[in-house]
């Protein structure tokens, strides 16, 4: 525990907030989905950092990070294979 964990987790959260700009701008549904996938990757990083800044709940948070990684992958594949149907429809296609 170096004392860096909580500030870095906060820094990653700020990154997530910045990525929301991309989700708002688009222009394709995939760009919005990319922001959601970033929540998966960065969320795993935040959870791992938090697991080490609070020793008492370490293992459950690492388990949560594993589940979040898996769910982000499933969401991304389901989006690409099923939800994203037509080009040109900017919104509401996903």
């Amino acid at each position, binding site marked *: 525990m170096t004392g860096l964990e909580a500030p*870095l987790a906060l820094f990653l959260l700020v990154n997530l907030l910045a990525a929301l700009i991309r989700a708002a701008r688009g222009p394709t549904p995939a760009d919005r989905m*990319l922001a959601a996938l970033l929540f998966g990757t*960065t969320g795993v990083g935040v959870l791992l950092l938090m697991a080490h800044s609070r020793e008492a709940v370490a293992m459950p948070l690492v388990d949560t990070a594993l589940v979040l990684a898996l769910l982000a992958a499933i969401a991304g594949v389901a989006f690409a294979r099923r939800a994203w149907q037509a080009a040109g429809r900017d919104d509401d296609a996903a």
Partner: protein
Amino acid sequence: MTPLEALSALLLLAGAAFYLAGTVGLLRFPDVYARLHALTKADNLGLGLIALGLALQAENPAAGLKILLVWPLVLVASAAVSFAIARRAHELGILPAGAESPAPPAPPPEGEARIMPPGDRA
């Protein structure tokens, strides 16, 4: 601060820098294909460095291995997801930035995995 803790802090900071690079790339890159690169390369390297830095501080080897186990899972998952999204974008006729020809490729039959013909593999 022991040398191990210093190394761990260095890895954590490097990981955060890669996360920042990934976010900047997601905001600045011109098309969906380039943004996939920012997301699936830079961010996963950042996650790997952070996992490594945290595993160095683990109190026993099992906990450290479990943290390191997260990284290959995310790597494989993001490779599969970025491939699926890039292929779908290509099928839907989304052009890379700077490409000129407006002719989108014909969408393949739904639900079929397309296999490269044997002649094209060499």
